[in-house]
Protein backbone atom coordinates (compact mmCIF):
# COMPACT_ATOMS: atom_id res chain seq x y z
CA UNK A 1 0.00 0.00 0.00
CA UNK A 2 2.62 2.51 1.02
CA UNK A 3 4.91 1.07 -1.67
CA UNK A 4 2.23 1.77 -4.25
CA UNK A 5 1.85 5.32 -3.01
CA UNK A 6 5.59 5.75 -3.05
CA UNK A 7 5.68 4.60 -6.67
CA UNK A 8 2.67 6.55 -7.94
CA UNK A 9 2.46 9.75 -5.88
CA UNK A 10 6.21 9.88 -5.44
CA UNK A 11 6.73 9.26 -9.14
CA UNK A 12 4.39 12.04 -10.16
CA UNK A 13 5.81 14.52 -7.66
CA UNK A 14 9.36 13.79 -8.70
CA UNK A 15 8.40 14.24 -12.34
CA UNK A 16 6.98 17.66 -11.55
CA UNK A 17 10.05 18.48 -9.49
CA UNK A 18 12.76 17.24 -11.77
CA UNK A 19 11.54 17.30 -15.36
CA UNK A 20 13.22 20.40 -16.79
CA UNK A 21 10.59 21.32 -19.29
CA UNK A 22 7.58 21.58 -16.98
CA UNK A 23 6.68 25.15 -17.90
CA UNK A 24 4.47 25.69 -20.93
CA UNK A 25 6.88 28.32 -22.29
CA UNK A 26 9.57 25.70 -22.45
CA UNK A 27 7.47 22.60 -22.85
CA UNK A 28 5.52 23.46 -25.97
CA UNK A 29 8.48 24.45 -28.14
CA UNK A 30 10.66 21.63 -26.89
CA UNK A 31 8.34 18.68 -26.58
CA UNK A 32 5.92 19.44 -29.40
CA UNK A 33 7.85 21.76 -31.69
CA UNK A 34 10.96 19.63 -31.98
CA UNK A 35 9.10 16.39 -32.84
CA UNK A 36 6.99 18.27 -35.34
CA UNK A 37 9.95 19.62 -37.28
CA UNK A 38 11.89 16.41 -36.95
CA UNK A 39 9.12 14.53 -38.71
CA UNK A 40 8.85 17.19 -41.40
CA UNK A 41 12.62 17.20 -41.98
CA UNK A 42 12.92 13.48 -42.44
CA UNK A 43 9.79 13.02 -44.51
CA UNK A 44 11.11 15.62 -46.94
CA UNK A 45 14.58 14.13 -46.85
CA UNK A 46 13.01 10.77 -47.64
CA UNK A 47 10.99 12.21 -50.51
CA UNK A 48 14.06 13.91 -51.91
CA UNK A 49 16.30 10.88 -51.72
CA UNK A 50 13.51 8.52 -52.78
CA UNK A 51 14.70 5.79 -50.42
CA UNK A 52 11.58 4.92 -48.42
CA UNK A 53 7.99 6.13 -48.49
CA UNK A 54 6.48 8.77 -46.17
CA UNK A 55 4.99 6.15 -43.85
CA UNK A 56 8.43 4.75 -43.11
CA UNK A 57 9.63 8.09 -41.77
CA UNK A 58 6.41 8.98 -39.99
CA UNK A 59 6.28 5.71 -38.07
CA UNK A 60 10.00 5.74 -37.37
CA UNK A 61 10.12 9.32 -36.14
CA UNK A 62 6.81 9.28 -34.28
CA UNK A 63 8.08 6.36 -32.22
CA UNK A 64 11.56 7.85 -31.97
CA UNK A 65 10.29 11.12 -30.49
CA UNK A 66 8.53 9.17 -27.77
CA UNK A 67 11.84 7.44 -27.18
CA UNK A 68 13.47 10.85 -26.93
CA UNK A 69 10.89 12.03 -24.42
CA UNK A 70 11.53 8.88 -22.40
CA UNK A 71 15.29 8.98 -22.52
CA UNK A 72 15.58 12.64 -21.65
CA UNK A 73 12.69 12.59 -19.19
CA UNK A 74 14.10 9.65 -17.29
CA UNK A 75 17.62 11.03 -17.31
CA UNK A 76 16.35 14.25 -15.79
CA UNK A 77 14.06 12.66 -13.28
CA UNK A 78 16.95 10.72 -11.81
CA UNK A 79 20.09 12.72 -12.32
CA UNK A 80 18.61 16.12 -11.45
CA UNK A 81 18.53 15.02 -7.82
CA UNK A 82 22.17 15.83 -7.87
CA UNK A 83 21.56 19.25 -9.35
CA UNK A 84 19.12 20.17 -6.58
CA UNK A 85 21.27 18.65 -3.85
CA UNK A 86 18.40 16.47 -2.71
CA UNK A 87 20.12 13.14 -3.06
CA UNK A 88 21.29 13.06 0.55
CA UNK A 89 17.78 13.74 1.84
CA UNK A 90 16.33 11.02 -0.35
CA UNK A 91 18.96 8.52 0.72
CA UNK A 92 18.47 9.48 4.35
CA UNK A 93 14.83 8.41 4.14
CA UNK A 94 13.72 4.87 4.91
CA UNK A 95 11.74 4.71 1.65
CA UNK A 96 11.99 1.36 -0.13
CA UNK A 97 14.33 1.87 -3.04
CA UNK A 98 12.60 -0.28 -5.63
CA UNK A 99 9.29 1.61 -5.76
CA UNK A 100 11.16 4.86 -5.25
CA UNK A 101 13.29 4.23 -8.32
CA UNK A 102 10.93 2.45 -10.68
CA UNK A 103 7.90 4.57 -9.79
CA UNK A 104 9.52 7.37 -11.70
CA UNK A 105 8.92 5.53 -14.94
CA UNK A 106 5.14 5.96 -14.67
CA UNK A 107 4.80 9.68 -15.50
CA UNK A 108 7.68 9.51 -17.96
CA UNK A 109 5.99 6.71 -19.85
CA UNK A 110 2.62 8.46 -19.99
CA UNK A 111 4.33 11.54 -21.22
CA UNK A 112 6.19 9.58 -23.90
CA UNK A 113 2.92 8.12 -25.17
CA UNK A 114 1.51 11.61 -25.43
CA UNK A 115 4.46 12.86 -27.44
CA UNK A 116 4.25 9.87 -29.73
CA UNK A 117 0.54 10.42 -30.29
CA UNK A 118 1.36 13.98 -31.23
CA UNK A 119 3.95 12.65 -33.69
CA UNK A 120 1.44 10.38 -35.41
CA UNK A 121 -1.09 13.21 -35.50
CA UNK A 122 1.51 15.41 -37.19
CA UNK A 123 2.00 12.70 -39.80
CA UNK A 124 -1.74 12.46 -40.29
CA UNK A 125 -2.33 16.20 -40.50
CA UNK A 126 0.59 17.16 -42.73
CA UNK A 127 1.22 14.11 -44.83
CA UNK A 128 -2.10 12.31 -44.90
CA UNK A 129 -0.79 9.35 -42.94
CA UNK A 130 -3.55 6.92 -41.98
CA UNK A 131 -3.64 4.04 -39.52
CA UNK A 132 -6.25 1.37 -40.20
CA UNK A 133 -8.69 1.42 -37.26
CA UNK A 134 -8.01 -2.16 -36.28
CA UNK A 135 -4.29 -1.56 -36.04
CA UNK A 136 -4.58 1.44 -33.78
CA UNK A 137 -4.75 -0.44 -30.52
CA UNK A 138 -1.90 -2.85 -31.22
CA UNK A 139 0.20 0.10 -32.37
CA UNK A 140 -0.53 1.96 -29.15
CA UNK A 141 0.54 -1.15 -27.29
CA UNK A 142 3.80 -1.30 -29.21
CA UNK A 143 4.49 2.38 -28.59
CA UNK A 144 3.65 1.98 -24.91
CA UNK A 145 6.11 -0.85 -24.54
CA UNK A 146 8.78 1.00 -26.50
CA UNK A 147 8.34 4.06 -24.35
CA UNK A 148 8.78 2.06 -21.16
CA UNK A 149 11.76 0.20 -22.58
CA UNK A 150 13.39 3.45 -23.71
CA UNK A 151 12.81 4.78 -20.24
CA UNK A 152 15.06 1.92 -19.20
CA UNK A 153 17.84 3.43 -21.30
CA UNK A 154 17.03 6.84 -19.79
CA UNK A 155 17.23 5.31 -16.31
CA UNK A 156 20.60 3.94 -17.15
CA UNK A 157 21.84 7.36 -18.25
CA UNK A 158 20.15 9.00 -15.28
CA UNK A 159 21.92 6.69 -12.87
CA UNK A 160 25.19 7.45 -14.58
CA UNK A 161 24.30 11.11 -14.28
CA UNK A 162 24.23 10.80 -10.52
CA UNK A 163 27.97 10.38 -10.70
CA UNK A 164 29.14 11.65 -14.06
CA UNK A 165 29.14 15.30 -14.96
CA UNK A 166 27.66 16.31 -18.31
CA UNK A 167 25.29 13.41 -18.61
CA UNK A 168 23.13 15.46 -20.97
CA UNK A 169 25.95 15.33 -23.44
CA UNK A 170 25.60 11.58 -23.36
CA UNK A 171 21.80 11.78 -23.69
CA UNK A 172 22.05 14.15 -26.62
CA UNK A 173 24.54 11.95 -28.40
CA UNK A 174 22.49 8.88 -27.60
CA UNK A 175 19.41 10.40 -29.10
CA UNK A 176 20.91 11.54 -32.40
CA UNK A 177 22.74 8.24 -32.60
CA UNK A 178 19.40 6.47 -32.30
CA UNK A 179 18.15 8.45 -35.29
CA UNK A 180 20.98 6.83 -37.24
CA UNK A 181 21.19 3.30 -35.91
CA UNK A 182 17.67 2.47 -34.73
CA UNK A 183 16.11 2.22 -38.14
CA UNK A 184 14.28 5.51 -37.65
CA UNK A 185 15.32 6.92 -41.01
CA UNK A 186 17.58 4.32 -42.55
CA UNK A 187 16.55 0.68 -42.52
CA UNK A 188 19.05 -1.13 -40.37
CA UNK A 189 20.06 -3.54 -43.13
CA UNK A 190 21.74 -0.69 -45.02
CA UNK A 191 24.00 0.31 -42.15
CA UNK A 192 27.62 -0.64 -41.68
CA UNK A 193 27.73 -3.87 -39.65
CA UNK A 194 29.03 -2.22 -36.47
CA UNK A 195 26.33 0.44 -36.58
CA UNK A 196 23.73 -2.22 -37.16
CA UNK A 197 25.01 -4.19 -34.18
CA UNK A 198 24.82 -1.06 -32.07
CA UNK A 199 21.24 -0.53 -33.17
CA UNK A 200 20.27 -4.08 -32.22
CA UNK A 201 21.32 -3.36 -28.64
CA UNK A 202 18.76 -0.57 -28.29
CA UNK A 203 15.12 -1.22 -27.40
CA UNK A 204 13.99 1.62 -29.66
CA UNK A 205 15.25 -0.25 -32.73
CA UNK A 206 13.08 -3.25 -31.97
CA UNK A 207 10.12 -1.11 -30.95
CA UNK A 208 10.19 0.67 -34.29
CA UNK A 209 10.54 -2.62 -36.13
CA UNK A 210 7.55 -3.95 -34.20
CA UNK A 211 5.55 -0.80 -34.99
CA UNK A 212 6.21 -1.14 -38.71
CA UNK A 213 5.42 -4.83 -38.57
CA UNK A 214 2.08 -4.14 -36.86
CA UNK A 215 1.12 -1.74 -39.62
CA UNK A 216 2.12 -4.11 -42.38
CA UNK A 217 0.14 -6.96 -40.81
CA UNK A 218 0.63 -8.77 -37.50
CA UNK A 219 2.64 -11.90 -37.30
CA UNK A 220 5.62 -13.49 -35.64
CA UNK A 221 8.07 -10.64 -36.31
CA UNK A 222 5.92 -8.39 -34.12
CA UNK A 223 6.14 -10.73 -31.16
CA UNK A 224 9.83 -11.35 -31.65
CA UNK A 225 10.61 -7.65 -31.85
CA UNK A 226 8.42 -6.94 -28.85
CA UNK A 227 10.28 -9.60 -26.94
CA UNK A 228 13.56 -7.92 -27.75
CA UNK A 229 12.19 -4.51 -26.82
CA UNK A 230 11.00 -5.72 -23.45
CA UNK A 231 14.12 -7.75 -22.78
CA UNK A 232 16.54 -4.97 -23.62
CA UNK A 233 14.48 -2.40 -21.71
CA UNK A 234 14.52 -4.64 -18.65
CA UNK A 235 18.25 -5.20 -18.97
CA UNK A 236 18.96 -1.46 -19.05
CA UNK A 237 16.59 -0.81 -16.17
CA UNK A 238 18.18 -3.48 -14.03
CA UNK A 239 21.65 -2.19 -14.81
CA UNK A 240 20.41 1.30 -13.93
CA UNK A 241 19.04 0.11 -10.61
CA UNK A 242 22.26 -1.72 -9.86
CA UNK A 243 24.20 1.49 -10.46
CA UNK A 244 21.76 3.46 -8.34
CA UNK A 245 22.29 1.11 -5.41
CA UNK A 246 25.98 1.00 -6.02
CA UNK A 247 26.15 4.81 -5.85
CA UNK A 248 24.21 4.71 -2.62
CA UNK A 249 26.62 2.25 -1.06
CA UNK A 250 29.61 4.01 -2.52
CA UNK A 251 28.29 7.39 -1.48
CA UNK A 252 28.06 6.18 2.08
CA UNK A 253 31.55 4.83 1.91
CA UNK A 254 33.18 7.81 0.27
CA UNK A 255 30.94 10.61 1.46
CA UNK A 256 30.15 11.76 -2.04
CA UNK A 257 26.42 12.50 -1.91
CA UNK A 258 26.73 16.26 -1.99
CA UNK A 259 29.53 16.49 -4.49
CA UNK A 260 28.20 17.66 -7.78
Amino acid sequence: MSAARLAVTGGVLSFRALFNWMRPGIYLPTMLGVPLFQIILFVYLGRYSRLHDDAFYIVGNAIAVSGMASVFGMTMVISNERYFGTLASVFASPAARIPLFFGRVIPVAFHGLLVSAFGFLTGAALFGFRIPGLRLLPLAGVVGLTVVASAGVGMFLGSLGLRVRDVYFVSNVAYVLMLLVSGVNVSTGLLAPWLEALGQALPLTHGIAAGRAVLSGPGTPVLRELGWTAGLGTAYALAAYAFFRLWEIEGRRRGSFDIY
Partner: protein
Amino acid sequence: MTPQVAIEAHDLRRTYRTSTGTVRRRRIEIEAVRGISFSVLTGQIFGIVGPNGAGKTTTIKMLTTLLQPTSGRARVLGFDVVHDRQEVRRRIGYVVGGDRGLYDRLSGYDNLRYFAVLYGVPGGEQRRRIGSVLELVGLEKRASERVEGYSRGMRQRLHVARGLLHDPPVLFLDEPTIGVDPVGARDIRQTVAALAAAGKTVLLTTHSMIEAETLCKRIAVIAQGRVVVAGSAAAIKDSGTARAVTEILAGDVSEATLQRLRGLPGVLAVSTEVRDLTLMIRVQSTVSADLTPAILKQLNGARILNLSSRQPTLEDAYIELVSDLGRVEPN
Protein backbone atom coordinates in the same frame (compact mmCIF):
# COMPACT_ATOMS: atom_id res chain seq x y z
CA MET B 1 13.96 5.65 36.77
CA THR B 2 17.26 5.71 34.95
CA PRO B 3 17.50 8.10 32.01
CA GLN B 4 17.64 6.44 28.61
CA VAL B 5 20.52 7.01 26.23
CA ALA B 6 19.11 8.08 22.85
CA ILE B 7 22.30 8.66 20.90
CA GLU B 8 25.66 7.21 21.66
CA ALA B 9 28.87 7.51 19.72
CA HIS B 10 31.85 5.46 20.62
CA ASP B 11 35.27 6.36 19.23
CA LEU B 12 33.87 7.34 15.85
CA ARG B 13 36.43 7.94 13.16
CA ARG B 14 36.15 8.94 9.57
CA THR B 15 38.83 9.40 6.95
CA TYR B 16 38.05 10.83 3.52
CA ARG B 17 40.09 9.75 0.55
CA THR B 18 40.28 12.16 -2.32
CA SER B 19 42.76 13.02 -4.97
CA THR B 20 44.04 16.35 -6.21
CA GLY B 21 45.60 17.50 -9.42
CA THR B 22 44.37 16.69 -12.90
CA VAL B 23 47.59 15.61 -14.55
CA ARG B 24 49.55 14.04 -11.76
CA ARG B 25 46.90 12.76 -9.43
CA ARG B 26 47.96 12.60 -5.85
CA ARG B 27 45.92 10.71 -3.30
CA ILE B 28 45.27 12.53 -0.08
CA GLU B 29 43.62 11.42 3.10
CA ILE B 30 41.71 13.77 5.33
CA GLU B 31 41.09 12.61 8.86
CA ALA B 32 37.87 14.52 9.40
CA VAL B 33 36.82 12.79 12.63
CA ARG B 34 39.45 11.21 14.83
CA GLY B 35 37.78 9.35 17.63
CA ILE B 36 34.68 11.07 18.91
CA SER B 37 32.64 9.65 21.80
CA PHE B 38 29.62 11.10 23.50
CA SER B 39 26.13 10.18 24.52
CA VAL B 40 22.88 12.06 24.53
CA LEU B 41 20.03 11.27 26.88
CA THR B 42 16.44 11.08 25.73
CA GLY B 43 14.80 14.48 25.74
CA GLN B 44 18.10 16.30 25.84
CA ILE B 45 19.39 18.91 23.46
CA PHE B 46 23.00 18.25 22.72
CA GLY B 47 25.08 20.82 20.87
CA ILE B 48 28.23 20.35 18.83
CA VAL B 49 30.27 23.46 18.23
CA GLY B 50 33.62 23.86 16.57
CA PRO B 51 35.47 25.74 13.88
CA ASN B 52 34.83 25.22 10.16
CA GLY B 53 36.08 21.85 9.07
CA ALA B 54 36.15 20.50 12.61
CA GLY B 55 34.11 17.48 11.62
CA LYS B 56 30.63 18.41 12.82
CA THR B 57 28.80 17.64 9.61
CA THR B 58 30.83 14.48 9.16
CA THR B 59 29.78 13.32 12.62
CA ILE B 60 26.13 14.06 11.93
CA LYS B 61 26.26 12.24 8.61
CA MET B 62 27.64 9.16 10.28
CA LEU B 63 24.90 9.26 12.89
CA THR B 64 22.21 9.70 10.24
CA THR B 65 23.46 6.66 8.25
CA LEU B 66 24.60 8.74 5.30
CA LEU B 67 28.25 8.06 5.86
CA GLN B 68 30.03 4.91 6.81
CA PRO B 69 32.33 5.39 9.80
CA THR B 70 35.91 4.30 9.16
CA SER B 71 35.86 2.80 12.62
CA GLY B 72 34.00 3.09 15.89
CA ARG B 73 30.34 2.50 16.64
CA ALA B 74 27.27 4.57 17.07
CA ARG B 75 23.73 3.79 18.07
CA VAL B 76 20.52 5.74 17.85
CA LEU B 77 17.75 4.51 20.15
CA GLY B 78 19.71 1.31 20.47
CA PHE B 79 20.00 0.72 16.72
CA ASP B 80 23.39 0.54 15.14
CA VAL B 81 23.86 3.22 12.47
CA VAL B 82 25.69 0.81 10.21
CA HIS B 83 23.79 -2.44 10.64
CA ASP B 84 20.26 -1.28 11.39
CA ARG B 85 20.12 1.61 8.95
CA GLN B 86 16.44 1.33 8.11
CA GLU B 87 15.46 1.22 11.78
CA VAL B 88 17.54 4.32 12.43
CA ARG B 89 16.20 6.20 9.41
CA ARG B 90 12.61 5.64 10.45
CA ARG B 91 13.24 7.19 13.82
CA ILE B 92 15.29 10.23 12.96
CA GLY B 93 14.77 13.57 11.29
CA TYR B 94 17.71 15.14 9.52
CA VAL B 95 17.91 18.84 8.73
CA VAL B 96 20.78 20.25 6.70
CA GLY B 97 21.72 23.87 6.75
CA GLY B 98 21.94 25.85 3.53
CA ASP B 99 19.76 26.69 0.62
CA ARG B 100 20.22 23.60 -1.50
CA GLY B 101 18.48 20.31 -1.00
CA LEU B 102 14.95 21.34 -1.90
CA TYR B 103 12.97 20.85 -5.09
CA ASP B 104 12.92 24.42 -6.36
CA ARG B 105 10.21 23.89 -8.91
CA LEU B 106 7.73 22.44 -6.44
CA SER B 107 5.81 24.41 -3.87
CA GLY B 108 6.80 24.18 -0.24
CA TYR B 109 3.71 22.08 0.35
CA ASP B 110 4.57 19.63 -2.42
CA ASN B 111 8.13 19.33 -1.17
CA LEU B 112 6.71 18.19 2.13
CA ARG B 113 4.21 15.93 0.44
CA TYR B 114 7.02 14.18 -1.40
CA PHE B 115 8.98 13.57 1.76
CA ALA B 116 5.85 12.47 3.57
CA VAL B 117 5.56 9.78 0.91
CA LEU B 118 9.23 8.86 1.24
CA TYR B 119 8.86 8.54 4.98
CA GLY B 120 5.71 6.51 4.67
CA VAL B 121 3.48 8.94 6.54
CA PRO B 122 0.04 7.29 6.17
CA GLY B 123 -2.15 8.94 3.52
CA GLY B 124 -4.86 9.96 5.96
CA GLU B 125 -2.43 11.70 8.26
CA GLN B 126 -0.43 13.49 5.61
CA ARG B 127 -2.49 16.64 5.34
CA ARG B 128 -2.66 17.12 9.07
CA ARG B 129 1.06 16.49 9.59
CA ILE B 130 2.10 18.83 6.80
CA GLY B 131 -0.26 21.50 8.11
CA SER B 132 1.09 21.23 11.61
CA VAL B 133 4.78 21.35 10.68
CA LEU B 134 4.15 24.28 8.37
CA GLU B 135 2.48 26.09 11.21
CA LEU B 136 5.29 25.20 13.54
CA VAL B 137 7.87 26.90 11.33
CA GLY B 138 5.55 29.72 10.32
CA LEU B 139 5.37 28.95 6.63
CA GLU B 140 1.68 28.13 6.30
CA LYS B 141 0.89 31.31 4.34
CA ARG B 142 3.60 30.81 1.73
CA ALA B 143 3.41 27.04 1.41
CA SER B 144 1.68 27.06 -1.96
CA GLU B 145 4.43 29.09 -3.62
CA ARG B 146 7.29 27.54 -5.54
CA VAL B 147 10.39 27.15 -3.44
CA GLU B 148 12.55 28.92 -6.04
CA GLY B 149 11.01 32.17 -4.85
CA TYR B 150 11.77 31.52 -1.19
CA SER B 151 14.28 33.55 0.75
CA ARG B 152 17.16 31.81 2.41
CA GLY B 153 15.47 31.80 5.79
CA MET B 154 12.24 30.43 4.36
CA ARG B 155 14.16 27.59 2.79
CA GLN B 156 15.79 26.87 6.10
CA ARG B 157 12.41 26.74 7.80
CA LEU B 158 11.17 24.39 5.14
CA HIS B 159 14.16 22.17 5.85
CA VAL B 160 13.21 22.12 9.51
CA ALA B 161 9.60 21.34 8.65
CA ARG B 162 10.76 18.49 6.45
CA GLY B 163 12.80 17.02 9.27
CA LEU B 164 9.78 17.02 11.58
CA LEU B 165 7.32 15.61 9.11
CA HIS B 166 7.24 12.03 10.31
CA ASP B 167 7.33 13.05 13.95
CA PRO B 168 10.68 11.41 14.68
CA PRO B 169 11.79 10.90 18.27
CA VAL B 170 15.36 11.96 17.46
CA LEU B 171 16.37 15.03 15.47
CA PHE B 172 19.69 15.91 13.90
CA LEU B 173 19.97 19.56 13.00
CA ASP B 174 23.07 20.74 11.16
CA GLU B 175 23.19 24.51 11.60
CA PRO B 176 19.41 24.90 11.72
CA THR B 177 19.39 28.68 12.01
CA ILE B 178 21.96 29.50 9.35
CA GLY B 179 20.73 32.37 7.21
CA VAL B 180 17.61 32.96 9.26
CA ASP B 181 16.87 36.45 10.58
CA PRO B 182 17.14 37.01 14.37
CA VAL B 183 13.42 36.74 14.98
CA GLY B 184 13.14 33.67 12.80
CA ALA B 185 16.15 32.11 14.50
CA ARG B 186 14.54 32.70 17.86
CA ASP B 187 11.36 31.05 16.59
CA ILE B 188 13.31 28.03 15.43
CA ARG B 189 15.09 27.86 18.79
CA GLN B 190 11.77 28.01 20.58
CA THR B 191 10.48 25.23 18.37
CA VAL B 192 13.50 23.10 19.16
CA ALA B 193 13.13 23.75 22.88
CA ALA B 194 9.45 22.85 22.74
CA LEU B 195 10.24 19.63 20.89
CA ALA B 196 12.74 18.66 23.55
CA ALA B 197 10.24 19.51 26.24
CA ALA B 198 7.86 17.13 24.53
CA GLY B 199 10.43 14.37 24.91
CA LYS B 200 12.36 14.49 21.64
CA THR B 201 16.10 14.16 21.58
CA VAL B 202 17.95 16.77 19.58
CA LEU B 203 21.52 16.89 18.38
CA LEU B 204 22.44 20.15 16.73
CA THR B 205 25.50 21.93 15.43
CA THR B 206 25.84 25.66 15.42
CA HIS B 207 28.32 28.46 15.15
CA SER B 208 26.31 30.64 17.49
CA MET B 209 27.50 30.32 21.08
CA ILE B 210 24.38 32.07 22.28
CA GLU B 211 22.29 29.46 20.55
CA ALA B 212 24.36 26.68 22.08
CA GLU B 213 24.19 28.21 25.51
CA THR B 214 20.48 28.99 25.57
CA LEU B 215 19.40 25.75 23.99
CA CYS B 216 21.74 22.94 24.85
CA LYS B 217 21.82 21.04 28.03
CA ARG B 218 25.20 19.70 27.06
CA ILE B 219 27.73 20.88 24.55
CA ALA B 220 30.73 19.26 22.92
CA VAL B 221 33.41 21.53 21.56
CA ILE B 222 35.18 19.74 18.76
CA ALA B 223 38.21 20.79 16.80
CA GLN B 224 40.30 18.88 14.30
CA GLY B 225 38.03 15.89 14.62
CA ARG B 226 38.33 15.48 18.38
CA VAL B 227 36.20 16.45 21.34
CA VAL B 228 38.14 19.15 23.13
CA VAL B 229 35.74 19.42 26.00
CA ALA B 230 32.17 18.39 26.66
CA GLY B 231 29.72 19.28 29.34
CA SER B 232 27.22 21.95 30.32
CA ALA B 233 27.79 25.51 29.19
CA ALA B 234 28.82 26.39 32.72
CA ALA B 235 31.32 23.57 32.88
CA ILE B 236 32.85 24.63 29.57
CA LYS B 237 33.20 28.17 30.79
CA ASP B 238 34.97 26.81 33.83
CA SER B 239 37.28 24.72 31.71
CA GLY B 240 38.72 27.88 30.24
CA THR B 241 41.44 29.45 32.30
CA ALA B 242 39.96 32.94 32.26
CA ARG B 243 37.91 33.91 35.29
CA ALA B 244 37.21 37.53 34.46
CA VAL B 245 37.14 39.71 31.39
CA THR B 246 37.63 43.45 31.48
CA GLU B 247 36.68 45.38 28.39
CA ILE B 248 37.90 48.92 27.88
CA LEU B 249 36.86 51.19 25.06
CA ALA B 250 39.60 53.78 24.73
CA GLY B 251 41.33 56.17 22.35
CA ASP B 252 45.00 57.14 22.02
CA VAL B 253 46.34 53.85 23.31
CA SER B 254 49.95 53.14 22.45
CA GLU B 255 51.46 49.76 21.78
CA ALA B 256 53.65 50.26 24.85
CA THR B 257 50.57 50.62 27.02
CA LEU B 258 49.23 47.34 25.70
CA GLN B 259 52.55 45.68 26.48
CA ARG B 260 52.35 46.99 30.03
CA LEU B 261 48.83 45.57 30.35
CA ARG B 262 50.09 42.20 29.22
CA GLY B 263 52.72 42.35 31.91
CA LEU B 264 50.24 42.81 34.75
CA PRO B 265 50.14 39.93 37.19
CA GLY B 266 47.20 37.61 36.56
CA VAL B 267 46.59 38.79 33.00
CA LEU B 268 46.21 35.91 30.57
CA ALA B 269 45.71 37.66 27.28
CA VAL B 270 45.04 41.08 25.88
CA SER B 271 43.25 41.35 22.57
CA THR B 272 42.20 44.42 20.67
CA GLU B 273 39.61 45.29 18.10
CA VAL B 274 39.51 48.61 16.24
CA ARG B 275 36.15 50.37 16.55
CA ASP B 276 35.90 53.55 14.49
CA LEU B 277 38.49 55.83 16.03
CA THR B 278 38.73 53.94 19.28
CA LEU B 279 40.11 50.63 20.41
CA MET B 280 38.28 47.87 22.20
CA ILE B 281 40.74 46.23 24.57
CA ARG B 282 39.80 42.91 26.07
CA VAL B 283 41.84 41.78 29.05
CA GLN B 284 41.40 38.21 30.23
CA SER B 285 42.70 37.39 33.62
CA THR B 286 43.00 34.37 35.85
CA VAL B 287 42.27 36.14 39.09
CA SER B 288 38.70 36.72 40.06
CA ALA B 289 39.87 39.77 41.98
CA ASP B 290 39.10 43.10 40.44
CA LEU B 291 41.91 44.22 38.15
CA THR B 292 40.26 47.52 37.30
CA PRO B 293 42.42 49.82 39.43
CA ALA B 294 45.61 48.26 38.08
CA ILE B 295 44.42 48.55 34.52
CA LEU B 296 43.35 52.16 34.95
CA LYS B 297 46.71 52.99 36.31
CA GLN B 298 48.42 51.61 33.22
CA LEU B 299 46.03 53.39 30.90
CA ASN B 300 46.96 56.69 32.39
CA GLY B 301 47.00 59.20 29.57
CA ALA B 302 44.62 57.33 27.30
CA ARG B 303 41.13 58.58 26.57
CA ILE B 304 38.82 56.06 28.24
CA LEU B 305 35.27 55.97 26.95
CA ASN B 306 33.95 52.95 28.70
CA LEU B 307 35.13 50.23 31.02
CA SER B 308 33.35 47.15 32.17
CA SER B 309 34.14 43.91 33.85
CA ARG B 310 32.23 40.70 33.32
CA GLN B 311 32.27 36.96 33.70
CA PRO B 312 33.72 35.10 30.73
CA THR B 313 31.05 33.95 28.27
CA LEU B 314 30.87 30.67 26.47
CA GLU B 315 32.29 32.45 23.46
CA ASP B 316 35.36 33.55 25.43
CA ALA B 317 35.96 30.02 26.61
CA TYR B 318 35.33 28.60 23.14
CA ILE B 319 37.76 30.98 21.49
CA GLU B 320 40.39 30.19 24.04
CA LEU B 321 39.83 26.45 23.65
CA VAL B 322 39.92 26.25 19.90
CA SER B 323 42.57 28.87 19.27
CA ASP B 324 45.01 26.81 21.30
CA LEU B 325 44.64 24.11 18.69
CA GLY B 326 45.09 26.33 15.73
CA ARG B 327 42.34 26.86 13.26
CA VAL B 328 41.67 24.18 10.69
CA GLU B 329 41.64 25.87 7.33
CA PRO B 330 38.60 24.88 5.35
CA ASN B 331 39.87 23.23 2.19
